[in-house]
């Protein structure tokens, strides 16, 4: 009664395959093979005094979304004619497709600095509108937003690397963290702590490939270098990177580290119980003592990073975001006004970093990249109770001012995590030496990313 269709399938498959092949021969559809455009992609500010229109702004959901939401009223006090349609979007998943299809393109988007280079073809070059401010913007932020001479993002935050440490635990063990000046001092302090607290792993070793690579860039930024130079040439195989990885490998080899993913429950447990007492990380780690730690909340403090060489820079940048304006957005020029207000107008940046509804004592997980706003003498956010009332503003702005420039981010940075990020983890597994990490990652990134641009 039932027909055994499976028996007859091969013949039909062959026929169908032939149809497809014939179709290919007739191919007439495909991507346009020639479209060169000479039109300018440099954004101009709107001419009107009281510009009107609606702008669509994409932000990541979460606390920052709420903060920006609160600034819109202040913005409208200055520009009553501009309606801000502010939406929370899964930007990583959506932006790429939206730009390719050119449909419902937002006027402004919040984007990780590491991802900006990859989208430059779709974005307005902001070098003209930003010209009045560039001299006052942290050089590191201009570097990461610059592609082939154009600037493709309005720099948002500066994220100086700091050395967070558990002052109470270190004191109890008789280790004086404040005297640490170099990474060698840090290793010595960790050895001393481990001697006092056997079984501890004083220094955090990041286990996420992405964040591990981001932290590597922090250390490198401190030495004024990065994965690739301004021309996109790899420069991993250098004494600077060898030095950083050797430091990490020493922590691993002497068992001075706690290996965990950033602020996962495992990581938090080790922070709470005093096993993990040094956390060299960007300022946004301050979120942990404030929101996540319970037992060890008031015990943590922040200081500048150790220097690689005595007297060298005491900070490097780690992460950070900017605002980009897609060319296909209808009112990109109005969106520029929004970001100009947010970042360069005192009312704007005070509303972002100062006390607000979301953060009654201010937003203290980053500092402004606009230097007039990041003055150690005029704090925007208050001292942090969870850091024992420490004035984080002073520590962070002084550290931020030391971050060297000259560390651009290549457009393929995020893709490099599959190679460099993974190879660092293999080193922390004990399977690769620092030199092997650098040569392998260089070769893979060259073949799979640089050569395929």
């Amino acid at each position: 009664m039932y027909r055994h269709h499976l028996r007859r399938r091969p013949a039909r498959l062959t026929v169908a395959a032939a149809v497809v092949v014939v179709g290919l021969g007739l191919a007439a559809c495909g991507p346009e093979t020639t479209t060169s455009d000479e039109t300018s992609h440099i954004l101009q500010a709107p001419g009107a005094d009281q510009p009107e229109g609606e702008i669509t702004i994409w932000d990541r959901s979460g606390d920052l979304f709420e903060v920006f939401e609160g600034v819109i009223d202040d913005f409208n006090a200055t520009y009553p004619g501009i309606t801000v349609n502010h939406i929370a979007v899964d930007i990583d998943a959506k932006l790429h497709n939206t730009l390719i299809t050119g449909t419902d393109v937002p006027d402004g988007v919040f984007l990780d600095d590491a991802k900006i280079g990859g989208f430059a073809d779709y974005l307005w070059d902001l070098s003209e509108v930003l010209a009045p401010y560039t001299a006052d913007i942290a050089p590191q932020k201009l570097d990461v937003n610059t592609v082939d001479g154009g600037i493709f993002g309005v720099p948002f935050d500066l994220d100086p690397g700091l050395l967070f440490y558990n002052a109470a635990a270190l004191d109890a063990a008789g280790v004086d963290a404040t005297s640490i000046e170099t990474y060698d001092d840090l290793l010595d302090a960790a050895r001393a702590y481990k001697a006092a607290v056997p079984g501890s792993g004083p220094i955090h070793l990041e286990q996420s490939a992405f964040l591990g690579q981001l932290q590597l860039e922090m250390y490198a930024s401190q030495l004024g270098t990065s994965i690739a130079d301004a021309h996109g040439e790899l420069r991993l195989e250098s004494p600077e990177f060898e030095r950083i990885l050797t430091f990490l490998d020493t922590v691993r080899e002497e068992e001075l580290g706690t290996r965990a993913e950033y602020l996962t429950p495992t990581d938090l447990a080790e922070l709470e119980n005093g096993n993990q007492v040094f956390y060299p990380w960007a300022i946004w780690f301050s979120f942990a003592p404030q929101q996540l730690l319970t037992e060890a909340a008031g015990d943590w403090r922040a200081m500048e990073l150790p220097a690689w060489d005595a007297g060298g820079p005491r900070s490097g940048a780690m992460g950070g975001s900017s605002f980009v304006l897609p060319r296909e957005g209808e009112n990109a020029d109005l969106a520029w006004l929004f970001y100009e207000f947010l970042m360069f107008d005192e009312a704007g940046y005070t509303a972002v970093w100062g006390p607000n509804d979301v953060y009654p004592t201010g937003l203290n997980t980053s500092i402004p990249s606009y230097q007039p706003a990041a003055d150690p003498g005029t704090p925007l956010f208050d001292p942090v109770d969870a850091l024992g009332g420490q004035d984080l503003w002073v520590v962070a702005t002084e550290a931020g001012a030391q971050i060297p420039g000259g560390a651009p981010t290549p457009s393929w940075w995020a893709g490099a995590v599959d190679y460099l990020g993974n190879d660092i983890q293999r080193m922390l597994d004990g399977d690769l030496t620092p030199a092997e990490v650098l040569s392998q990652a260089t070769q893979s990134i060259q073949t799979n990313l640089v050569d395929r641009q």
Partner: protein
Amino acid sequence: MTDITTPSRRIGSHVFLMVLLVAFLAPVVWALLSALKPANDIIRAPLTFDPSTVTLDNYIAMFRDVPIGQGFVNTGIVLVAKGAITMFFAPLAAFAFAKYRFVGKNVIFGAVLVTLMLPTIVLIIPLLLQMKEFGWVNTYQALILPGSVDAFAIFWMRQVISAVPDELLDAARVDGSGEFGIFWRVVVPVIRPGLAGLAVLTTMNIYNDFVWPVVVASSDRMATLQVMLSTLAQNITGNRIGADYATVTGELLAASSVALIPLLVLFILLQRHFINGILAGSVKG
């Protein structure tokens, strides 16, 4: 029919099946219960459940952060439209394949098999650019039309319809019925169990569809339920900066529960039709 005769063998079978049953139900039960626990307890005590601490906090936080109502509306619209197209046109095409001889039949049925074998991910980019050409990005038709008249549905309904005796069709023809009339008034009533199975299967496929909606529905107002779930998940698996693990986990379990409850209820109500439907339509040895 095999009979399980000896008592020891019967007990053994039950132990084996019970272990499987627990394994198959545990993750769902765990998620439904955990979503009702305080967020911190989900992480600190994953194996315990204390009825005195039951809370709706995770659901409240999730409903605040995720426009899940809009997700249900979008999923509902796509489900009804795409489901109707597949439920009508797939059996119709299957009828042609099962009961007619016509030139090109093998080639066209080959096309059905090719479609069956094409991974969705392969066509994502060209389809997306095509939607751009059509001006269909962020529209319901883009969510509905590609992948409608599902190939597996045709393939399977062809099996079901093949079993309908030709004599029934010929009798209807003698009575003066048109070709479509034969399908509508003779075939459809006979294959009703199979159609019921198909309905549940199609509902599930559309409800669970994920890869294509994530790409083509980039705006929140078009996002389906599954797209919203994955957006929420980014807070855990993607960029962790500033995300509180316990809270996000709680919201995620609440959202997952909300997403799976409707299908679970639908399935439990219709399980007899579904299982019998699949039994009616599968390949026989």
